[in-house]
């Protein structure tokens, strides 16, 4: 891929050896919402083709991290930076980031009266001449009958998730941020949700050829049965307290709750 090198001001070609280049790098990020600091000194990096999972109790700052990466104006970066594909996007606007290749599945997206699901999918497709049509995407996400309905109006939990993933499949982001994709989804739907996420994250590709990255918030960990996350983090009180194998972290949380994580965090300090 091509990335700009600000020091010399020319474009250089960077070869992606084995897919381990840091495509998303968050360095010492602090984020405030309405003047209140929520995230403190968060650092993480996700390499090409990797999916990472984010655990943590309610209110610990997981959604805030996703919203800050996506670039929602209410989430103000007070310190640190976000680098995506070699480019510092800390000051880039929300829509700019979307066009650069970051996409997000929301847990509770708003109803927009009069705007059809079809309009959203079409907006997400942008000007890219895709090989796939809106109707094909809808069929894949079992959303055909929702295309001409107002977006999110009267949708169930599972319908919202499928709609969000359908829009992301149209958008084809390189980095997908997923906020609790399994919440409110029944057992029948979760397999479909898992398949859609896998497609989004190119999980059917061999690791070498995979470029798409994911960062997924999960409470229950159910979604880990469907997607192959390589790294997990525990977020506590706005800080990343722990990094490791996501399945081990999940097992530990299931056994000991987040109490163990608190101890771990204290010891690390």
């Amino acid at each position, binding site marked *: 891929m091509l990335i700009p090198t600000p020091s010399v001001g020319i474009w250089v070609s960077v070869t992606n050896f084995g897919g381990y280049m840091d495509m998303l790098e968050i360095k010492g990020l602090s984020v405030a919402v309405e003047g209140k600091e929520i995230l403190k000194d968060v650092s993480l990096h996700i390499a090409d083709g990797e999916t990472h999972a984010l655990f943590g109790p309610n209110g610990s700052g997981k959604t805030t991290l996703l919203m800050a990466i996506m670039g929602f104006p209410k989430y103000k970066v007070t310190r640190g930076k976000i680098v995506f594909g070699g480019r510092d996007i800390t000051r880039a606007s929300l829509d700019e980031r979307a066009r650069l290749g970051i996409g997000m599945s929301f847990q509770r997206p708003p109803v927009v009266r*009069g705007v059809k699901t079809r309009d959203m999918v079409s907006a997400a497709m942008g000007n890219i001449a895709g090989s796939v049509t809106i109707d094909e995407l809808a069929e894949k996400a079992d959303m055909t009958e929702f295309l001409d309905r107002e977006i999110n109006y009267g949708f169930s939990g599972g319908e919202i998730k499928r709609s969000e993933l359908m829009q992301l499949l149209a958008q084809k982001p390189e980095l997908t941020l997923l906020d609790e994709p399994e919440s409110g989804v029944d057992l029948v739907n979760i397999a479909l949700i898992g398949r859609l996420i896998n497609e989004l994250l190119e999980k059917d590709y061999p690791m070498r050829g995979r470029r798409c990255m994911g960062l997924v918030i999960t409470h229950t960990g159910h979604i880990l049965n469907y997607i192959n996350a390589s790294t997990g983090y525990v977020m506590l009180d706005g800080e990343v307290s722990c990094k490791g194998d996501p399945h081990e972290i999940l097992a530990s949380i299931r056994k000991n709750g987040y109490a163990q994580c608190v101890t771990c965090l204290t010891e690390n300090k």
Partner: protein
Amino acid sequence: MRDMRSSNAYRDKARIALNKPPAIGDDIDIDAYASSDEAVAYRDDPTELPTDIKEQMLDAGVVVDDLSHRSGTFIQMDNAPVHSSTSQEGIEVMALNQALDKYDWMSDYWWRVVSVDTDKYTANVELNQNSGYFIRALPGCKSIYPVQACLYLDKSRLAQNAHNVVIAEEGSELHIINGCVSGSGEEPGLHLGVSEIYIKRGAKVTFTMIHNWNSEVEVRPRTAVIVEEDGLFLSNYVLMKPVHSLQMYPSARCVGENATVRFNSVIVATPGSSLDVGSRVILDGKGDRAEIISRAISTGGSVITRGYIEGNAPEVKGHMECLGLILKGEGAIHAIPELKGTLSGIDLSHEAAVGKIKEEEVEYLMSRGLTRSEATATIVRGFLNVDIEGLPPMLSAEVSRAVESSGEDFM
């Protein structure tokens, strides 16, 4: 033959009501406007009309250059009919005066659903009775294409007095586009239009009214509809252009069982415009249905949206949705939804909201890659594009076109 034009009973009533102020809306001084009876050349071929006039008409859904997709056409300039024609057997389109000459039963449809003494405006229409259209579908006849009617207000300081009668006989279907237009200049004028619409058993009427006035024109339509058993009345009203003041409160009464009425209005109040637009439905037959959907946007003007559904029979159902968006400036929107039920077992509801575009919605669209202005435009377009159930695709396209073409001005 009894001619209503010389009926003293209506004239007497009108004379008494000549100074009767309207129940709502500004009291306009009608004497400030001339009531010209001047003839305008009749045209067998309406394509001969000047290009600028045709363009104004087109913005109100009236196509003059190619009549192949219209089952009938009526055009009136000021107070003179200039063209009427039909291309389908069983569909009648003519100037009202012709209908009065032709049918002696016109008294059965004359001031029957609108009262001549409603207010000074209806009284004025009776006393200066000189124009309007008559559209009728014979029993079982279904209009293949829409029938279009255009009331064009050309001269400055003129009062246009139109009395229109629409009759859908049993089992018939009529799709009407009614375009009201004023000249391209900003000349003052007054439009008074009485419309009486009769929908017989099992008949369907879609009535799409698109207004294209200017910022100096005062508009006072007086419309009432009667719907018999299994009948359907579907009204679409679109106002995207400036107007000085407009007040109307069309009323539909279902007198038979299982009749359906839907009113959809899409209105934009530009700076300086004062709009008071309502829809009223009375459900008197068992199982009747009503739906009122109103979408109003203010870009600086003021809007009152009224809605009224009254249920007086068993198993009737009605729903009303009045949504308002204030986009900018000193705009104001006042939604007044009213429901009245007079017996148990009826089901009436409403939903009303007035506000601005929610930041959360704009950001949601931006997160899919749209810029802020693209996101806002998409939301506004969606807000105005009311889905009109039962509307033929051609009319639906006409409404969308009116919304899209004018919507660009303020998005």
